[in-house]
């Protein structure tokens, strides 16, 4: 694969761009994912900039700045929302610039006499209300999204690396290797995934990576079948025979010829794998077998939402986000499939 786009790839890209809803969904998704990596600048209880006695402070990343630094009487992390109010009252030219949504995903905004969940309220800065322990729903949505999407992408990369490698090898080498792996995979595929997760998470608290390892354990299977078939088909083609006749090594043939020619399969499956990654993580969190409390997650929000149906903002916010995300991913997936449809570009003999 070279960086320079060959005409065929350019054609595919143009075709993808011409499918408007898929293209715009992709643009939005990529932007949102990219922004979520820097969510601390938009949704955070730490201030963006504090100006105090002529000095500028940038607390977003880095060490905790304790209240004493800003002339407060406490030695734990500064409450910047309070600090902002206090600076305004003092009127000494000090100021605080807060992010758009001034809460992080963990802090409990609890006031005596007002019991969470509280409804959306612009003045307090809880734009989507709070959950049952007074945490900002918007912050938990944003950080939950980031966790889920990173989880899905990493899982996808790992799954595909293993799946494509084994699948290609099975299709390319065939014979006993193929036979052996087919049987192994058939057995593997019959291990009940959900029970394993339940058992594992009841004896230990799964963290991000153990959860990913468990899913990876079973997730790589699907890709092998497709890759095996595709490779098998390509292996019989003349160009592979030609390459082999010219003395190319197996690795060279697989990397230079077979994978580029089966890339459409891989790319087509990608968006759907991402969406199912998000769905699985959310379902597990919903059932209580996912990431440990108090990690922000959509599943956990959904669970809170369904047990507090009268606080409709919790359940509706996560359902709407989920629908939006999955719809956009599906649009992108469709568009990619259209764009990469071999019937549009190739003529088979």
């Amino acid at each position, binding site marked *: 694969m070279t960086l320079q786009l060959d005409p065929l790839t350019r054609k595919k890209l143009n075709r993808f761009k011409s499918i408007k809803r898929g293209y715009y969904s992709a643009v939005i998704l990529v932007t949102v994912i990219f922004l979520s990596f820097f969510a601390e600048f938009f949704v955070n209880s730490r201030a963006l900039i504090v100006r105090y006695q002529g000095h500028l402070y940038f607390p977003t990343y880095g*060490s905790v700045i304790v209240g004493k630094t800003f002339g407060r009487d406490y030695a734990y992390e500064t409450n910047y929302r309070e600090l902002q109010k206090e600076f305004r009252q003092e009127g000494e030219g000090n100021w605080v610039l807060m992010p758009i949504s001034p809460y992080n995903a963990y802090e409990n905004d609890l006031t005596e006499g007002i*019991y969470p969940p509280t409804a959306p309220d612009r003045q307090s800065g809880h734009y989507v209300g709070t959950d049952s322990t007074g945490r900002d729903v918007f912050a938990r949505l944003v950080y939950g999204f980031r966790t889920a999407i990173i989880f899905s992408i990493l899982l996808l990369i790992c799954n595909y690396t293993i799946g494509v490698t084994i699948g290609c090898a099975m299709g390319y080498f065939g014979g006993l290797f193929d036979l052996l792996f087919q049987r192994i995979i058939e057995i593997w595929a019959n291990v009940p995934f*959900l029970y394993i997760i339940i058992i594992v998470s009841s004896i230990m608290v799964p963290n991000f990576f153990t959860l990913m390892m468990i899913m990876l354990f079973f997730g790589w299977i699907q890709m092998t079948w497709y890759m095996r078939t595709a490779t098998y088909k390509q292996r019989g083609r003349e160009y592979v025979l030609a390459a082999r006749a010219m003395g190319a090594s197996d690795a060279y043939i697989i990397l230079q010829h077979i994978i580029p020619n089966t890339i459409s399969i891989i790319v087509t499956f990608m968006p759907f794998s991402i969406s199912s990654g998000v769905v699985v993580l959310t379902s597990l969190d919903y059932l209580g077998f996912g990431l440990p*409390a108090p990690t922000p997650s959509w599943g956990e929000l959904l669970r809170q939402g369904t047990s507090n149906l009268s606080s409709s903002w919790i359940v509706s916010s996560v359902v709407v986000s989920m629908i939006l995300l999955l719809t956009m991913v599906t649009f992108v997936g469709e568009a990619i499939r259209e764009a990469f449809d071999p019937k549009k570009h190739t003529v088979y003999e």
Partner: protein
Amino acid sequence: MKRIAMLILVGALAGAACSKKSEPEAEKKAPVLTDAQTAAVNKADLEELFKETYLERGTMPKGINWLTNDSDPVFASPKAKKGGTYYYWMDSFPLTLRTVGPDSNGSFRSNLFHNQMDLLHMHPETGNLLPGLATHWGTNKEQNTLYLKLNPNARWSDGVPLTAYDVAFTLKFYLSKHIVAPWYNTQYGEEYDMITVYDDHTLAIRSKNKRNIKDLVYYATFEIRPRHFHILDKDWVKRTNWQIEPNTGAYLISKIEKGKFIEFKRKKDWWAKDLKYFKNRFNMDKVKISVIRDANVRLEHFLKGNLDGYPLVIPEYWHSKVTGKNVDNGYIQKVWFYNDRPQPIYAIYMSQSIDLFKNKDVRIGFAHSLNVDKVLKTVLRGDYDRMETNTMGHGVMDNKKIKARRFDLAKADEHFKKAGWEKRGPDGIRVKDGKRLSARVTYGYDAHTDRLVVLKEEAKKAGVELTLQKLDGAASFKSMLENQHEIAYTGWGAQDRMQYWGQYHSDNAHKPQKNNFGNVADKVLDPWLIAYKDEFDETKKAALAHKIQQRIHDEAYTVTLWAAPYIRFGHWRWMKFPDPVASKGSKDTTIYPFDGDWGGVFWIDEEVKKETKAAMKAGKKFPPVLIKDTRHKKG
């Protein structure tokens, strides 16, 4: 991956489908016997019974001081009406109708247990002994034997009279290997020395331990089993799975639909119905207990009137979910009754198996870093009380002078500094020699996550990091028993008699399968714990209890958290209660309608039910009723 998501969905659906499956059960009931037959039943195979080394026949010793009680006040209402059906719920269908043996330890079991009357009951207001199956009782000088005279009118539900041979048989029953209940085998084996039968209705139970009379009754009596019903052989477990055992209480199971409901019917000619402390109790003709798995669905059923009463201890239920039209119009009434009985102990136990908690200052620092008050005021809405020491509701046994350590950053700082945890890392958490002041909290209650996240966030201010390890209930308890925890957050069920040895004695520290979750090994405390265990004089015992509690507090072995020392529930207006609604020693009778000590005091008024239903249709209102009874409230 899609397959995985589908699997989860299919799994959930399959679970729902299973619960819907039902098959009517053919019930097995013993036929009603004639007098001659019953006499034969009672005398049959007695020789066989007394072959056991722990059972004997004897002649009555002289000079027993027989006691009874009919001078305590009654606590049921003379206004009570018989009739109607009480609808309530269980969260899952029982796996068996046996009350001992495999799978019997479910939440449904109390309904069966409570319908077996006790030999002696306890008055819920005065705490005195009351007659049950036995009318008179007494003890000997050595304080190890309980003499009992049984009520000659006592009958099993199949009409067979209850005799002293049933009591003797019961010990044989609990010690039998055939019931597959090792806990009973060892526990009762260690407690009972001998049961002596003097005649059909008089007997003595001798314990291996010296105890005061209340403790004797508590430890040395059990649920009596019908001798004519049980055949102890290797098929016992299998055979009795779905058999309805004859009982002595007010109700008997009358209908079962597996997976759906179990219905109890009141015995019209129950032998105890006119006894002083049982009159006007157990009033409903039927009690129908239906399976409703999900707590939210249960609440909806209650709000619709499909369930007559519902516990509202959870602040959210009381303050927000059960409010609105039904309550304002007086259709649903609310009761908040402070009782004064032993409370479950919710506490954190800092395991001294890990080096961090071997330091007393660190433990005190931790105690000052937990903002329990904030949890009480916010998450728990001010409804719960701070548990000041590790007992509550044990009367004179509680050391009321102890005040639990409050959230105090200055004091926390002082103690952490003493222990060398002065510096803070870049994330605000204290550090020492490259280690962070961080501990893992193991717990098993999903509903308590809300409380723990607040503690966690607040503890950060003191420079303490708590990581939360939520395991499923059984797994979390197992990990604590295996000593894998750093901090155990757990609740111990209310004990009628407070025990300290198991949780604090050095014999139980640093070992698996022990309840000493703090792994406390304290040379000062050890002898007191032994002395407390063996003391049977109430005053001396109380003094020891106070000393023990003080030591535990001074050394900061545990941080006790919260308690809800009350009954709180909602009920439809056709469900009527005596005045006062409950007694000092009552639990929630809406969840335990059959309890012999204090249960079954309410009644269902069918006329009021009709009136209320009509009023709801017509939009007619009644004055709203909210009873808050604080006569037994402490502090």
